[in-house]
């Protein structure tokens, strides 16, 4: 039994490949937990970052600097009355959020957080991700239809049209990246998520810089399409608040609504992971060739710890700046404790054995976090596209661009 547990640690492959169900289960739990934490953190960060862009403070009351706000929100949503509209199609109404949330989580099976840090490495990994994530449109349409109400119906129709059209542009961009993986001695490419990153490692370049500017254009096409795919600003028409009140989930409340919320954020993380894997070198650290050698490896391996140390210092700085009033004592202590927690994580990350194992995950997460910041930034900056304009961008701009890039990549690859 012990052998069964420990044998995986030295196997240098993913639990799925090693056929180790126990570790696969542990990985699934870790990913599920980590994703939930990420969504909660994202909720807080989005509100804070957006608030600071908009000259306001954002949540400040629940916990120090509103740190407990997402938890308070989650509790509020869970204890809310479960409302099912009388005219709704009960079963479809019930099953729609489940489909959305399950598809949003299932895709993470193949996301490679590191060379071995994935639940499994499918040989059709990227296809699996695109396929499963596009199933969520089914849940959206079902939600809109089952609500039996005009606004959700229009929201659902908009979102299905949008998701279907942008998937094509997205797919073309993905194919051009996959073509690049076949540029090796055998001439065979790969659809495996881990294989794609390893191809970038072997070619000593991230695909975003490959065949400059073709890789970059494909990346930009994907980056635009993925925002539309996840129904976020400026393509947030399905839930255009000022037009359709809340789009397809207008009639949902409480826990069911929170499932849509959870799905939206995990879908954002999922598509960002695809972008990171395909173009930004997945778990690879920046400048692997330019700043190579043991010294640089060591320096870069310290970055995770330094990041958390920086966050801890920020926390302590805010602790010192908290109002010196007895009312704020608990909050100040809480903030100090949070800073302490971050510092502990930082120290743990400096331990050599942890450092080596964790840095792949760190670089992957850091790149995804960059995309998350972009999402928030878009939301703070752009107005919303109109439906016909959205379709125009999808079909008349992104699709031809994606197709052109695909053909040019193929031609360039041959010669």
């Amino acid at each position, binding site marked *: 039994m012990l052998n069964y547990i420990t044998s995986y640690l030295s196997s240098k492959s993913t639990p799925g490949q090693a056929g180790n169900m126990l570790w696969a289960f542990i990985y699934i739990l870790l990913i599920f937990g980590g994703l939930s934490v990420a969504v909660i953190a994202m909720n807080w960060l989005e509100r804070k970052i957006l608030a600071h862009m908009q000259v306001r403070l954002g949540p400040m009351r629940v916990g120090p600097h509103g740190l407990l706000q997402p938890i308070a929100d989650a509790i509020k949503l869970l204890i809310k009355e479960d409302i099912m509209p009388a005219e709704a199609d009960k079963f479809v109404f019930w099953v729609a959020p489940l489909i959305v949330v399950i598809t949003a989580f299932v895709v993470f099976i193949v996301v490679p957080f590191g060379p071995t840090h994935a639940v499994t490495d499918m040989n059709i990994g990227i296809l699996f991700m695109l396929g499963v994530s596009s199933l969520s449109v089914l849940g959206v349409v079902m939600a809109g239809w089952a609500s039996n109400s005009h606004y959700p119906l*229009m929201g659902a129709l908009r979102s299905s049209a949008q998701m279907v059209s942008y998937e094509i542009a997205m797919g073309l961009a993905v194919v051009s990246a996959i073509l690049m993986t076949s540029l090796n001695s055998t001439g065979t490419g790969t659809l495996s998520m881990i294989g794609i990153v390893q191809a970038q490692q072997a070619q000593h370049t991230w695909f975003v810089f490959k065949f400059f500017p073709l890789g970059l254009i494909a990346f930009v096409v994907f980056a635009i399409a993925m925002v539309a795919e996840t129904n976020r600003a400026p393509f947030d028409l399905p839930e255009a608040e000022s*037009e359709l*009140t809340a789009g397809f989930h207008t009639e949902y409340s409480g826990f069911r609504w929170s499932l849509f919320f959870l799905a939206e954020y995990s879908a954002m993380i999922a598509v960002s992971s695809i972008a990171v894997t395909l173009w930004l070198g997945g778990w690879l650290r920046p400048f692997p060739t330019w700043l190579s050698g043991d010294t640089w490896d060591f320096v870069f391996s310290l970055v995770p710890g330094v990041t958390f140390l920086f966050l801890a210092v920020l926390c302590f700085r805010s602790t010192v700046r908290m109002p010196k009033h007895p009312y704020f004592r608990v909050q100040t202590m809480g903030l100090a404790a949070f800073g302490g927690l971050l510092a502990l994580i930082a120290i743990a990350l400096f331990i050599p054995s942890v450092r080596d194992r964790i840095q792949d995950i760190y670089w992957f997460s850091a790149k995804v976090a960059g995309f998350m910041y972009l999402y928030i930034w878009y939301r703070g900056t752009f107005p919303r596209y109109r439906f016909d304009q959205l379709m125009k961008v999808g079909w008349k701009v992104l699709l031809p661009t994606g197709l052109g890039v695909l053909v040019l990549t193929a031609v360039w690859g041959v010669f």
Partner: protein
Amino acid sequence: MPDTTKYLSHLELGEPDQTFLDTNELIINMGPQHPATHGVLRVILKLDGEKVLGTECVIGYLHRGVEKIAENRTYAMFNPYVDRMDYVAAVSNGLGYCEAVEKLLNIQAPPRANYIRVILTELNRLASHMLWLGTHALDIGAITPLFYTFRDREEILKIFEKYCGARLTTHAFRIGGCLYETYEGFEQDVTKFLKFVTPKIGEYEELLTTNRIWVERTRGVGAISAKDCIALGVTGPVLRASGVKWDLRKAQPYANYAEFDFEIPTGKHGDTYDRYMVRMQEMRQSLRIIEQAVGKIPEGPIMAKVPKVIKPAVGEIYHSIEAPKGELGYFIVSDGSTQPYRVRVRPPSFVNLQALDLMVRGQLVADVIAVIGTLDIVLGEVDR
């Protein structure tokens, strides 16, 4: 469940499409509880998919019978009520009413009062336009300008608060002039504000004017020709954006607007983008007027000689001013008693709202929102 289609006068559903698609037209109800109808406007939309085939506005959810109330109040007592019509431009409402009654009494506000009136009214125009910009941008999906404009509008409201104690429904003016003398440092505050806000307007423009999505969402949307505007009685920035150079501050100068040098910005196409540009330039022109006025407020009384009991001679008067949203007119009939026999308000929002149907027919649902925003209606004024 009541059939909503029954309330429609001209929005009849068409026959279902007899082709294999079997589609039908859809009537949906937007408002009165809707985030983007600027209050309690209810718009019934007849849609073919996303395309708008017709609209019908249902108003009156905020009706308080302001005009009827006037008949039971003395002239001075009614003054605060007008602030509650267009509550984002309360100062302009007060100015219009006070001047109308002054005209009826045949008295003139002293020059100092006129200067204070102009400064406060133009500040209010800025505040109103800022609120319009923020909410309009929010309707189109840009959420950030709202907070910028509210931050800067706050400075205007602070000046109002310091001047007369109220921020929104100011009741700043009285019949015959102003009640309050300017406070210590009023002119410095206004000058400071001018310095503060000038770059801010550039900041809003930076976010929107050349923003590709913004331009696509507003250019060619809700276009209305000058002829239609005049036929419908549409005034204000909406009329000017269609290319008609008509501003009551120049056309029929009231207060002492004739003394100031400013331009009337006009547009060409009468679309949402032009209306946006006209209002942005109007904000700059307002700053120009305030700048000219603040340096030379004359000394003197702030109140004309007004009888203790206001009892105008039998007669009627129509006086209109250029409110931020268009021509705001007061028609007052006096029967020689202390109370007006009839007060009729010509609210710009109400008249401009008529153009909604014409502007959105054949466009998309999202454009309805943009057009409601660009008409700059305040339901307190529409319903009175």
